[in-house]
């Protein structure tokens, strides 16, 4: 059986509205303070199965691909 390459974690980050771009003043592009080589901060988030998923659950087991999506699945 083919092993899973990595644990894919799909984090949807959406808001309930979409502001018209012309009325949006972007303060600055979000920029993570993380750098390659840093230890990733652990987190616990609710999955679509209403179960807690912790980053540390994958430690020693799988590589994690964390994809953070904004305004992914809502109509907003």
């Amino acid at each position, binding site marked *: 059986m083919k092993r899973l*390459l990595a644990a*894919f974690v799909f984090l*949807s980050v*959406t808001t309930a509205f979409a502001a018209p771009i012309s009325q949006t003043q972007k303060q600055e592009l*979000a920029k993570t303070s993380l750098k390659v080589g840093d230890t990733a901060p652990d987190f616990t988030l609710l999955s679509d199965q209403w179960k807690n998923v912790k980053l540390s659950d994958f430690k020693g087991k799988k590589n994690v*691909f*964390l994809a953070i999506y904004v305004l992914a699945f809502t109509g907003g």
Partner: protein
Amino acid sequence: MDSPAANAAFAKQIDIKFPLLSDMNKKMLKEYGILKGYDVQNETYQWAQRANIVIDKNGIVQHIEEGDSAVDPNTAMSVCTDLHKKGAK
């Protein structure tokens, strides 16, 4: 925010086999420094940028893409493939 219920509906719709997570209180996003405020009509709203982050089995960040470059997952996938090959016995 997409709730776990909304994510569950989406996962079922396109038959996703990996977890879809919801950061309803934006705690993780703040810790990762991805969440930023935007001023709209005298109010400040917060949402995140697109990002792909690859974390190896030891919990070490191996790859970061943000913004427009994170729309294409292929680079991050390549990093995952390389990590997998290195870890293969």
